[in-house]
C-alpha cells in the first residue's frame, strides 16, 4: 500500500471517528421525575434538575449576587427569567410521547431553585402540567429530557422516578427504560373497568 493511500484511509477513518465521538456536553444534569395521577389521568410531573459542580459555580457566580450561598426570592426570580426561561425555545429539553406519538410540552409552573448544601450543586424544580386523560385502553407515556446537540447532557437513574396515584379509578405505574442515547421514564395509565 502506498503511503498516500494509507494516509487517505487514515483520514477517512479519523473523520468517521470524529463523527461518532459526538459527545460534546458542557453541562451535566441529573434529573428526577415524580408523576402525579388524578381522577382524569396523568395530571403532570414534578421535575428536579441537579447541575454538576462546575456549572453550579458558574450559575452561583452569575446569580448569587449577595454571595450568601443561597438564592433569595429576587435571585430565584432572576434565575427563572434569565436562565430557566431561556430553555423555552428548546421546550425545556423535555420529550413526551404518548403511544409513540409526539406531544407538545406545556409551560412549566411552580419553578423554584436552591443550592444543595451537601452536594454543593444547584437544583431546579418545576411542574409540567401534562394533563393526559386516562381511557379504558391502556396509554403508554414516555417522558425524558434530551438535548439533540448534546450541549447539555441529561441522566436519570432507576431510583429517581416515582409516582403518586390519587385516583381509585385509574391504574398507573412508572418504570425506567434504557434506550441507545437517553434513558426514559414510561408511565402507564388505564381506567379501571
Amino acid at each position, binding site marked *: 500500500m502506498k503511503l498516500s493511500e494509507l494516509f487517505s484511509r487514515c483520514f477517512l477513518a479519523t473523520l468517521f471517528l470524529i463523527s461518532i465521538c*459526538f459527545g460534546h456536553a458542557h453541562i451535566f444534569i441529573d434529573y428526577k421525575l415524580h408523576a402525579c395521577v388524578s381522577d382524569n389521568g396523568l395530571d403532570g410531573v414534578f421535575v428536579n434538575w441537579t447541575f*454538576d459542580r462546575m456549572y453550579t459555580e458558574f450559575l452561583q457566580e452569575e446569580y448569587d449576587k449577595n454571595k450568601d450561598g443561597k438564592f433569595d426570592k429576587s435571585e430565584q426570580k432572576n434565575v427563572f427569567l434569565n436562565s430557566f426561561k431561556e430553555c423555552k425555545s428548546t421546550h425545556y429539553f423535555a420529550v413526551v410521547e404518548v403511544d409513540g406519538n409526539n406531544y407538545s410540552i406545556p409551560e412549566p409552573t411552580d419553578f*423554584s431553585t436552591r443550592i444543595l448544601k451537601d452536594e454543593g450543586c444547584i437544583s431546579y424544580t418545576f*411542574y409540567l402540567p401534562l394533563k393526559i386523560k386516562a381511557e379504558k385502553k391502556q396509554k403508554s407515556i414516555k417522558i425524558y429530557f434530551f438535548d439533540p446537540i448534546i450541549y447539555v447532557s441529561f441522566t436519570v437513574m432507576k431510583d429517581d422516578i416515582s409516582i403518586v396515584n390519587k385516583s381509585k379509578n385509574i391504574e398507573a405505574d412508572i418504570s425506567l427504560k434504557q434506550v441507545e442515547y437517553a434513558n426514559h421514564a414510561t408511565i402507564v395509565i388505564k381506567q379501571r373497568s
Partner: protein
Amino acid sequence: MLQLLLNSVPDIKIKFLIVILFPFFVWSLDSLSMDNNNSQPSFDNPFTNDEGVEGAENQSGEESIGSKPTDVKVKKPPFWYRFFHIYVNKWQKGINTKISTMLNDYREHITARRVLFIFLISLAYSLMHTAGPGHGKLILSSYFLTGEEKRKRRDAIIAGSIVAVTHTGMAIILSLPLFILIHSFGNQREMAEMSRRIGGIFVVVTGVVLMMVTVFKDRIKILSSRSDREKFNKLSLYTIAVLSGIVPCPLAWTVLVFAISYNMHLYGIISVLGMAIGAAITVGTTGFLVLMGKETALSHVNEEYAEKFAYNLRFAGGFVLFLLGIKMAMP
C-alpha cells in the same frame, strides 16, 4: 330553592318546565364543581418545600391546556452515534466530576505530582471534547481546501495551536476580569454570543475574499508574484485561525471559574493549559488530515482534470467559510 322559583313564576307552563329541568340543573352544577376539583388536584412536591417563584405560574393567566399531540418532531442524533452516546457521555461526565473533585481536594497541598495529574487528565478530556462539534475544525478544514499555492503541512499545526490558544485564551481573558470587577462586568453568555457574532462577520468576509481570489486571481495585481501570494496565504491563515477560536471555550471558562472561586488559581491555569494543548492536538490533526486528503485526492485525478478539480475545491472551501460565517453571525 325550587319552591322559591315556582312561587316567583306565575305561568303554569313555565312552572312545569322548571320542575322538569331542575334535576338537570342541579346535576350540571354538581359535575361542574367536580371538574373544577379535578382540574386542580393538590400534589405535594417531593423535591422541595419551597414555594414557586413569583411569576413562574402560567404566564398567560389561563388554565394550562396540557400536552397535546404535535407534528413537531424531536431531533434525534444519527443512528451510529446513539450507540456510543451513553458510553461517551458517561466517560465525559466522570472526568468532569473527577476534575472538580480533584481541584477541591488538592487545594490544601500543591505538589508537582498533583499538578501533572491535573494537567494530564485535562489534556485527555480536551482531546475527546474538542473532537465534538465546533472548535473551528470545519472552518479550518474548509480553509485548507482554498489557496492555489500548496499549503504546508506545518500550517495545520500552527493553525491548530492558534485556534487552541485563542479559544482557551479568550476564556482566560474574559474570566479573570470577571473576578476583579465582578459586578461591573457584563453577562458572560452575552459576551460569548457577541464575540461569536463578530467573529462570524469576519469569517463571512474572509470566505468572500477567498472566493474572489479564486475566481479573479489573474486580475488581482497585488497577488501576481509568488511571494505576495505566500504572504497573503500566511495572513489569511492566521486570521482564519484566530477567528475560528475567538468564541471563548465554555469548558475552559467553567473550569477556570470553578478553580478561581475555590481559590485554586494555579490548578485552574494548569487545567486550562492542558485543555489548550489537547485542543491544539485535535484541531491541528484535523487540519493536517484534510491537507493529506486533498493532496491524495488531487494525486488520483488525471492532470487534465486536476486543475479544474483544485479550482472547484478552492471555491467550495471559500463558499463553506461564507456559510459558516453566516451561521456564526446569526442570532
